[in-house]
């Protein structure tokens, strides 16, 4: 059963690769056909690393290499793409660096209208970027209700309007013309219609919702509440916003990240990666792999793509950390020394 599945998977993957090869063979730049590792950095600034898909080529600091003398900013949070461009969000610097995704040369910066920007998505020539704005530790009155979406006109790289969310906001996803937003301090998935800029009825999923992905009209949200509360995958059927849950056993408390790839839902807990079928009703407690992170290390970035599992160790935030790459059976393929605090993988194909 397992073997045949793998076999099928391998065939379909090779088909996919050969197809895309036919269409487009020439790399569009130095950083085509590979992936970026975003390094959040500490107060001294973040960086972006690049590795080719075959893991043969690696550049530790792409941004600095391509843009000597310019500073990407502090606390790099997210990268999103549009056409030939990549947008790098520096949360601590209220800036989005717009670069060519294949050369990483700086094109422009979105440098006003942002306040602690977090994550972004693209729709019809516009970027929708969540902004945490002020925080309740210093602004107890409105810190938890002043988050907004900055709507950025990608032709001018200017924030053209804001959508007030009246809640906290973090990760954002675009599906079928709607924006879905999670945040761990919010017990709801916010739903926004970007065309009308109207807030639609949110979906209550419980606190600590974080990574999410849509498959076949169902939104999968991983939530990992604090304290003695079980982690869950919350499934929201987007057509009627009905909710079902897969509650994890205690051994999977403080689950980390979720990613759906090739009809499997992958998720992490502590230093391990697990997978279940999208139709599963129970969590798997048998890890595909347990990353051999150093003491004090923790999974801080996670992705499954190109038949590989990618794990970033957050590290100690004062040293370069590592990215660990495994095949889908959990066999280690490569370790890469990246920058400080790697928090995400972005595939450039």
């Amino acid at each position: 059963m397992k073997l045949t599945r793998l076999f099928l998977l391998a065939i379909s993957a090779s088909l996919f690769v050969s197809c895309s090869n036919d269409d487009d063979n020439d790399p569009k730049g130095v950083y085509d056909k590979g992936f970026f590792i975003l390094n959040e950095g500490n107060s001294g600034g973040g960086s972006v690393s690049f590795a080719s898909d075959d893991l043969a080529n690696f550049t530790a600091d792409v941004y600095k290499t391509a843009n000597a003398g310019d500073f990407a900013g502090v606390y790099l949070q997210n990268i999103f793409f549009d056409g030939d461009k990549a947008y790098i969000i520096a949360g601590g610097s209220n800036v989005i660096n717009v670069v060519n995704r294949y050369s990483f040369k700086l094109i422009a910066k979105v440098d006003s209208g942002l306040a602690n920007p977090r994550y972004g998505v693209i729709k019809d020539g516009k970027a929708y970027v969540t902004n945490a704005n002020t925080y309740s530790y210093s602004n107890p009155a409105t810190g938890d209700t002043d988050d907004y979406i900055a709507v950025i006109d990608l032709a001018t790289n200017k924030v053209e309007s804001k959508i007030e969310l009246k809640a906290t906001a973090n990760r954002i996803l675009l599906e079928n013309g709607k924006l879905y937003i999670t945040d761990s301090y919010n017990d709801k998935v916010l739903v926004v219609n970007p065309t009308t800029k109207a807030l639609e009825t949110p979906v209550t999923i419980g606190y600590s919702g974080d990574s999410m992905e849509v498959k076949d009209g169902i939104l999968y949200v991983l939530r990992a509440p604090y304290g003695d509360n079980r982690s869950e995958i919350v499934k929201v059927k987007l057509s009627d916003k009905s909710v079902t849950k897969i509650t994890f056993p205690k051994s999977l408390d403080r689950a980390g990240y979720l990613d759906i790839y090739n009809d499997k839902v992958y998720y992490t807990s502590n230093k391990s990666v697990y997978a279940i079928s999208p139709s599963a009703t129970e969590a798997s407690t048998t890890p595909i792999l347990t990353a051999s992170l150093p003491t004090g290390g923790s999974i801080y970035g996670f992705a499954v793509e190109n038949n590989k599992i990618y794990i970033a160790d957050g590290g100690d935030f004062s040293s370069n950390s590592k990215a660990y790459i495994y095949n889908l059976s959990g066999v280690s393929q490569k370790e890469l020394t990246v920058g400080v605090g790697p928090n995400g993988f972005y595939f450039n194909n």
Partner: protein
Amino acid sequence: MTLKKYFAFSLLLLCQFIWAQKDSITSLKEVLVSDSNLKKYSASQSVLKLNDSVINKNEALLTDLLNFNSTIYFKEYGRGMLSTVAFRGTTSSQTAVIWNGININSQMNGSTDFNTISGSDYNSISVKAGGGSVIYGSGAVGGTVHLNNDLAFYNRFENNLKLDYGSFNTIGINYKTNISNEKWSAQIGFSKNSSTNDYKYLNRYTWKGEQRWNQNGQYDVITLSANLGYKFDAKNSLKLYTQTSNTDRNTSLITETETPSKYINGFNRNLLEYDGDFGKFKANFKTAYIFENYQYYPDNSLNQYTYGKTESLITKADVGYTIFKSTQVNGILDYNRTKGYGSGFGDNTREISSAALLVKQDFSKDWKNEFGIRKEFTDNYKSPVLFNLGSSYQFGKLYNLKLNLSRNFRIPTFNDLYWEEGGNPDLKPESSYQAEIGNVFTFKNISLTQTLYYIKITDLLRWVPGSGGIWRPENTDKVNSYGAETLLSWKKQYGKNYFGANATYAYTVSENTETDKQLFFVPFNKVTTAVSYSRNRISAYYQFLYNGFVYTQADNDPNEIVDAYTVSNIGIDYDFKFLSSFKLGFQVLNLWNENYESLENRPMPGRNFNLYINLKF
């Protein structure tokens, strides 16, 4: 004032600094030093004393004074911004700052920001290298910096006013008055040092090609001091030291797009001290109340802030007894109660008591020994037994050998213990063993001090990311720090020409024993030099600082460093001899327009200027 006094005074002005063993204070009569233990129990260690003439030659804030004149390394978040130290390769909370004998490191974060202190508020500032926890308590690991106000008892009414105006609208008003007779002594001081601090970054441009400059870097440091002494008779005296300060600073931006924030902090210190001198028997009682607070505004434009405050009550009884002519014993009991409250760490109180015994034995004029032991008692942490053992032997006129061995510590702070979330109430103090050998050579007008040291630090606190992304302090690291410090001083008179030169060099290795990596933000090399010249009414000086590169990451990634830099200052002043002294001076700072930073992305200013008037009347 007699001619002789004038002569002595001008001599004082000449030397940039004076070694402790040739303490200038001893030449003036009837001065009550605020911290008698500093002199009494430092024979086996090296103390660098910076008197007011040196203080006046440097920029107002303490960072500059110590950066250009001592072996201490500074990490500055831009000019006038947060400034922390590494002394002998230790962390910023392992250098204790001592105000008139009282440890004033922040109870909240354990360290002192040297840009919140104006040098002119003190009569002298001493830098004592090496451990001192037996006398000064927590944080005296790498060394101690002493801010002293000494009260003199003779008839005088002296005023000193220094006005500065410099580049970037840097304004200094520093005033001090001394009023005293044989019974009373009062010293009142006021200092205000501010700057719009909007300097251009040399050769740095935004992506649009605009010149970059230091945005949101304005600061204003105001301090008011009043010190009062009364001598009841030859045996009994009472002293009161008070100081209030407020530092209002924006935090300079590292990118133009960042949200401008600001940080306001202040303190209020009061110390009442009784001194009794009954021949063989001496008594010193101190009571101090120290208040510190801060407010951090993450966004300047909003009235939203986080804050923290601590109030400390310190009482200290120090009873000294001379057993034999050669042997003195001091017994010290100490009680400290600190109440802290803030948005980050709730409301907590900490009580610490301690008992210490100090013995000083002078076998002969040339052979001096020191011994000290101290133990703290508190519910908060397990406290190690601290000790200090030292010996100094003078071989002829030329050579003085000093040996010192000590155990020192740094206690967890309110942030470490109680921060919400993450504070760890089960922390141990950081503790260290330290050994040093000092060689002091004195030949004619030259004094050369060389000290080799070795420090073994265990249970070093570090905030590490824990589960769920919550950072938490842990006693994780072990560090071995060793190195050499060289201090050189020379002065010479040729007719009416007075020359002086001073230099320091520190070689520092500070290794995490697990990784064998150098601690980040500890330079291997630091050099300072100062030469001065004066003739009649003119005096001039030149200062030089070389700061070796530092790693900015714990893994010593060779690409992640702050480059080495050399900075020079030059100054000249002319005394119009109007009133008791009327000096007009001019300084060029960063003379060679060095493009440098002490912390990544935080450039320091290029060549800049300062004009001052120094009036004594």
